[in-house]
């Protein structure tokens, strides 16, 4: 099965080719690149500067979600704002407190931007640039790092200003804290980036975008910094991807509004169960699992349920990619949008949840497979419903 690391490698290589890493490594800035289509919205690339700033090694960071750098004093509302920006597929710039591997907190300007596929208009990645904020920018009213000898610190800072780069800042911070003797953990409550940091972030982002755009030309899968085409019908937004990616059961989403009712989403567990790769099944009719001995009357039952907008549970013989078969307890259910006609909320998708009979499901919680199936249905319903409440998201194929 595709390990997560495999997917992460592919995330970068397929879009930008394997040579992009060297190019990105030449940039001096601190940044990470994440992929919202992989379960957990993980980091797929971290720059050398970022690793140095955070104190982590590459292995410790790749595959992790960005929230591991948050800690007790990180402002929760700011975290919510970042989450919202990701959900709405837009950029954001905020002052954020993060924590290094050794537990020390530091303030930085966090600049997040989505990258879009040029042709299909989907969000392919998010780029996050981090610019540590110099001590001089601290706001009044906060507890300052070193109240004694602060004059001295300012002078030291002033003279280093011109040569400041992220390395120096880190070093300086460490040196200052040693000098002052006060605990580094006594960090300011609020902090605001100044023009220096903002310019730094903007130029870093432009450099990164430039590299990514160039290398995407090599693979033919062009990207751009703005959405330049409207996503096609059946587009699953990155936010829906992120939500669905949290659901651990095997399931697919079918779009009943498109001709031939294609699969528009397939969970990792589904791919593992059936042996297919994602690109094998996306866009295909859900009959892709049918084979020679699949009972046609069961197929008919499924079609009827869809036509009558009902849920159904059937036992059907399904086939994996390698042609081996398994008995599939399939539960199919309509999933509604939040909006639509008042009298009946529009159906956005059908979700099909598969459970292989007789497989050893170790369930620590004592749940029956049927219950877990239903739980997947419930979770999908919530995800689709919540996301369809927003005005701007393309969560379904409704025009």
């Amino acid at each position, binding site marked *: 099965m595709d390990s997560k690391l495999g997917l992460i490698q592919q995330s970068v290589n397929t879009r930008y080719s394997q040579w992009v890493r060297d190019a990105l490594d030449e940039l001096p800035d601190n940044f990470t690149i994440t992929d919202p289509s992989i379960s957990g919205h993980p980091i797929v690339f971290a720059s050398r500067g970022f690793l140095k700033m955070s104190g982590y090694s590459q292995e410790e960071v790749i595959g992790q979600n960005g929230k591991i750098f948050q800690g007790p004093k990180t402002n929760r509302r700011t975290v919510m704002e970042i989450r919202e920006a990701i959900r709405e597929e837009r950029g954001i710039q905020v002052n954020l407190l993060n924590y290094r591997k050794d537990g020390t907190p530091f303030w930085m300007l966090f600049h997040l931007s989505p990258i879009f596929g040029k042709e299909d208009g989907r969000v392919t990645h998010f780029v996050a640039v981090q610019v540590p904020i110099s001590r001089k920018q601290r706001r009044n009213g906060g507890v300052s790092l070193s109240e004694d000898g602060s004059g001295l610190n300012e002078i030291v800072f002033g003279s280093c200003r011109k040569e400041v780069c992220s390395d120096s800042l880190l070093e300086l911070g460490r040196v200052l804290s040693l000098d002052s003797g006060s605990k580094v953990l006594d960090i300011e409550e609020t902090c605001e980036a100044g023009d220096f940091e903002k310019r730094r972030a903007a130029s870093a982002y432009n450099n990164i975008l430039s590299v990514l755009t160039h290398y995407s030309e090599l693979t033919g899968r062009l990207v751009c910094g703005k959405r330049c085409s409207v996503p096609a019908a059946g587009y699953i937004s990155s936010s829906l991807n992120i939500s669905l990616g949290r659901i651990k059961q095997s399931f697919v989403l079918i779009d009943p509004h498109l001709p031939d009712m294609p699969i528009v989403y397939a969970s990792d567990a589904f791919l593992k169960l059936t042996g297919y790769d994602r690109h094998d099944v996306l866009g295909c009719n859900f009959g892709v699992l049918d084979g020679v001995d699949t009972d046609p009357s069961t197929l008919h039952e499924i079609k009827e349920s869809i036509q009558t907008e009902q849920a159904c549970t059937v036992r059907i013989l399904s086939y994996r990619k390698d042609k081996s078969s398994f008995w599939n307890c399939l539960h199919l259910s309509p999933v509604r949008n939040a909006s639509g006609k008042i009298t009946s909320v529009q159906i956005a998708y059908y979700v099909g949840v598969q459970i292989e009979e007789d497989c050893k499901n170790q369930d620590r*919680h004592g749940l029956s497979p049927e219950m877990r199936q239903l739980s997947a249905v419930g979770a999908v319903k919530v995800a689709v419903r919540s996301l369809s409440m927003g005005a701007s998201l393309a969560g379904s194929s409704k025009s």
Partner: protein
Amino acid sequence: MLTIKRVATVLSNYQDDGYEIQEVGCGRNCLGNCCLPGEWEERMRQGLFRYDVTNCVTKIIPGKYGFIAQLNEGRHLKKRPTEFRVDQVLQPFDDSKFNFTKVGQEEVLFRFEQSNNYKSHYFLATALAVTADGNNSPNVVAINRIDHSSFLLAINFAKEAANPFFRVGYNSLGAFATINHLHFQAYFLEVPFPIEKAPIQRLFTKKRVQDRGVIISKLLDYPVKGFVFEGGNSVQDLSDVVASACICLQNTNIPFNVLISDSGKRIFLLPQCYAEKQALGEVRQELLETQVNPAVWEIGGHIVLKRHEDYDNATEESAWRLLAEVSLSEERFKEVKAYVLEAAGLQEKPNMKENKGNDLNQEKDEANQKEDSLCKQPAAASQADQCIPYDCMVLH
């Protein structure tokens, strides 16, 4: 360690609102993942809900805050009517009225209890009665009021869900709780609540010897005035500070709602006076006609509307106007702020930056005087303590 054992059951009929459920990583957290959504779907299939929330149109109202409007026609008809006086936050238990023990075992979804071993957590949602001795049927019932241990349970519940979109809410009597049996509600919605977006201003406090690290702020630029509790040296510290504040409000007969969000890291405490205003005939007719009862989800910004017109014409202004009616006045809020800070074991530090430097000191003096007379436990409450021993709690 908290564990929850599953009890196979049927969902109660007076579920206030639907659960919107979101899965979290399976493994240690089962709440969003396995049990709750599955049990929910099962109950849906059995037709046990009086209404199907997923058939209710819902939209985010365009605007700065993104208030959430849901049309649920006839909900007021199907919802259990409030059986209690709206003017008293603490009321004695009346066994003839509905309480959660009357739902019989089938209506209970899960148990939520303290455990002595270290097994992994199970998960739970909705109505449930717990006993200290581990029996299925509770002997006694807690009235609808908060105390330190029940609040800690609620926060841990939110924490275990480990999902920022899973919120736990509480309505005191007088703030549209309909049942005088201690219960919390849970609501998953993958959308930020408007109240979570509101800017806040920290209330600076003098450090006391036993500083628990809790940061208290007040909401700014939001129709309802309220407090936000964050931080804390531990979950217990945060929980205790909020519980103390709630207890103080209970004792001073101020109805309030509590919203636990961000997996237990941010807690909103909102004193309100809508019921009182209603009783005094001070609420504008147009608002009364919407028949919205502003409980915790409404105040958080998720407003359930009962009439088409209200839903169709919902705007940020109309939502704001509705919620503003619920809020305490600036004056009254300042008084309550003093109680809350005092109860939380903190004292406000005069902030030299505020223009009203002198006023603050004066207010504090006045508030302190009031406090002495009001914040002591009234006789009624202690009688309630004596009459109703409880060792169980319901999580709704």
